[in-house]
């Protein structure tokens, strides 16, 4: 097996796991295990994964239950892993233990009557979007990487672009099948649009980042596929002008699927990285606005109103992508922004403020950048007040001011009524910053909840609420 230490993972444990899932689905070889150890967290802040890891690949909630019972009895840490697209080290196994990969949970059932999809935790975002589309329906949310697993999207309450009109993952989840660390299988919620039966444990599971239970299956709300859709791009000469247009658009009654904020320099690099061309090469800042409507007339009436509001805030001519291929290209280049920056990024922040405060937040970030002589590329989900600010490496390394600058950005965000994470979560990399945003009572309650679910602290230990 080639393990160092190997104190926890003795051969009896491996045998037990093999009995649960079968020999084929227990992976001990280092070359194969290594693929499961990391996610998309930037290397500067990424926690060091343990090398003493076994990967198991169950395919039913019952198997997950048996694995957790074995682990709970032996007090072995368990790390649920999905598409490994997280950015805060939430799925990185930091202690010797068992990785539970959800890749075999591939069931997809589309309920056209109720406009819902019941899907296994291992279904990817791309597969979900495609399955909904095949049924003539629509899953609007697009948190970025289409390789992300649905289980992970729910566990992290993912957001991303296209969350303005229908909300974030939490707004889609109607039911969750989850296995708690002591092995019981809970089926929370269902294909219901109303449900007030006791405390809502389902919503506690959503966003719990794999610390309260392993999600095996989810039921998600779908929407009818809107026949008409356009993506608009509005160029502005300054950050402030672009951001100023956002509340006006939201107030106008137009109901965009997404309002994204990007800066020309970064979006051009992203396009170049994909060997594509970005369609608007003017301005400093740009808004990308996606509209979907039942009729073409109402779509263009909204587009015209948005054009008027953008121009009032100083934008140049808006361009429009209408063909699906052209809209997909715009979204693909937008989604590739982080991939292009990643090699030089110390950390990607996903701070969030009330949308009306976004311009102020950007100003503060600009000032902090000037104070430290640091380039801080920003883009984000302007319609949600959710901003990605990046602290960059200097000469390939984290600059001395990295932690201090990050703390100042977080403090400014909280002061504006914001939160330190709008969508990526706390994972491992932000535990130390949690106290900037939450009171000690809140953190204490969260730890109590963790203890109630996981008395032996075996599931994703140390994540979100730390090692109390």
């Amino acid at each position, binding site marked *: 097996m080639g393990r160092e230490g190997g104190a926890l993972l003795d051969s009896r444990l491996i045998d037990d796991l093999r009995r649960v899932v079968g020999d084929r689905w227990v992976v001990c070889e280092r070359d194969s295990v290594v693929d499961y150890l990391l996610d998309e967290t930037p290397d500067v802040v990424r926690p060091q994964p343990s090398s003493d890891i076994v990967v198991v690949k169950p395919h039913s909630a019952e198997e997950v239950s048996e694995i957790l019972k074995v682990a709970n009895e032996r007090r072995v840490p368990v790390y649920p892993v999905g598409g490994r697209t997280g950015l805060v080290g939430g799925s990185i196994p930091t202690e010797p233990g068992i990785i539970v990969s959800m890749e075999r949970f591939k069931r997809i059932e589309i309920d056209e009557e109720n406009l819902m999809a019941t899907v296994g935790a291992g279904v990817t975002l791309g597969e979900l979007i495609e399955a909904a*589309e095949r049924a003539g329906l629509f899953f609007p949310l697009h948190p970025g990487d289409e390789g992300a697993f649905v289980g992970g999207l729910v566990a992290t309450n993912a957001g991303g672009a296209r969350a303005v009109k229908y909300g974030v993952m939490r707004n889609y989840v109607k039911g969750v099948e989850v296995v708690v660390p002591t092995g019981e299988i809970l089926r929370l919620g269902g294909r219901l649009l109303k449900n007030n039966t006791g405390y809502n444990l389902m919503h506690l599971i959503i966003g719990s980042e794999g610390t309260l239970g392993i999600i095996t299956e989810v039921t998600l709300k779908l929407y009818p596929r809107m026949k008409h859709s356009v993506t608009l791009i509005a160029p502005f000469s300054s950050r402030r002008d672009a951001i100023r247009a956002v509340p006006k658009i939201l107030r106008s009654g137009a109901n965009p699927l997404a309002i994204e904020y990007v800066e020309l320099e970064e979006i051009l690099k992203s396009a170049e990285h994909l060997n594509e061309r970005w369609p608007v090469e003017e301005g400093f800042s740009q808004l990308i606005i996606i509209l979907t409507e039942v009729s073409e007339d109402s779509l263009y009436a909204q*587009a015209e109103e948005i054009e008027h509001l953008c121009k009032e805030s100083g934008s140049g001519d808006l*361009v429009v992508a209408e*063909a*699906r291929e052209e809209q997909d290209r715009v979204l693909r280049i937008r989604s590739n922004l982080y991939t292009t920056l990643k090699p030089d990024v110390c950390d990607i922040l996903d701070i969030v403020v009330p949308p009306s405060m976004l311009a102020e937040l950007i100003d503060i970030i600009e000032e902090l950048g000037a104070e430290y002589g640091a380039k801080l590329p920003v883009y984000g989900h302007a319609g949600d007040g959710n901003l990605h600010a990046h602290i960059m490496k200097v000469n390939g390394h984290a600059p001395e001011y990295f932690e201090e600058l990050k703390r100042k950005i977080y403090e400014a965000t909280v002061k504006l009524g914001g939160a330190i994470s709008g969508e990526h979560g706390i994972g491992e990399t932000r535990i130390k910053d949690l106290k900037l945003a939450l009171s000690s009572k809140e953190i204490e309650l969260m730890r109590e909840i963790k203890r109630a679910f996981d008395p032996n602290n075996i599931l994703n230990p140390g994540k979100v609420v730390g090692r109390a």
Partner: protein
Amino acid sequence: MVKQVPDIERVRFDLETGRLDRSSAEGVTNPFDLNALEVGVQIKERLGGRITAISMGPPKAESTLRDCLARGADRAILLTDRRFAGADTLATSYTLACAIRELGRFDLIVCGEKTLDGDTAQVGPEVAELLGVPHVSYVEEVVAFTHEGITVKSDIGRFHYIYELRYPCLITVTKNVNIPRLPTLRDKILARKARVEVWDAERLSRVAEPDRFGLKGSPTTVVKVFSPLSSGRRGVILEGDAEELADRLLNVLREVGALKMERGNVD
């Protein structure tokens, strides 16, 4: 010349009959035709001139012509008539060529190399032949253009050719020739209200023989649509005297379907 095609990612394809169910997906502008229009717009930006977009198709193809108007065409003509329906590439080319003749003098016709639904790449060159003008297919780069002519680079697989053509002429372009720009919202909104001229068979009566339109003018018969199975190389060593070998070789070739002796076979 442009065509509305079904959105290829969404359209249903009947594997049994080999037919597209065109009602299963919205119509979009054939993507190669957007490259063709972009060539026209770039020439217009430098040398001036007017761009006319022409399409033959059902009335709903009007939206494709509006798309062309938004992207820089000055005039849009839709050839639509029941008598044009059921056309193969020859009858389609004939109808389009008649319309171009009816329009009068032109310098350059630009088409996409092929359409996503038909995939024949025949209509462009056939129109040029019917109009008696020189033509180059698979243009991947417009090297230069003046008021007198155009220099293009054509990609025919293993070789690239540079051609200098004098107007009037026709080129068909590949996706590599440019990246079509997106229209401004303003132009898109104006195009939604602009006039698309609709021409029927009568409108072409001065220049056309009606029997050459549509199904009547289409000699092509589709016997079967299928995807040929790809097979790797196979070696057979035959030994014996020449006479006998020739017969055996013929048999081998027939067996693998490399030779067919039936008449009227459509390949």
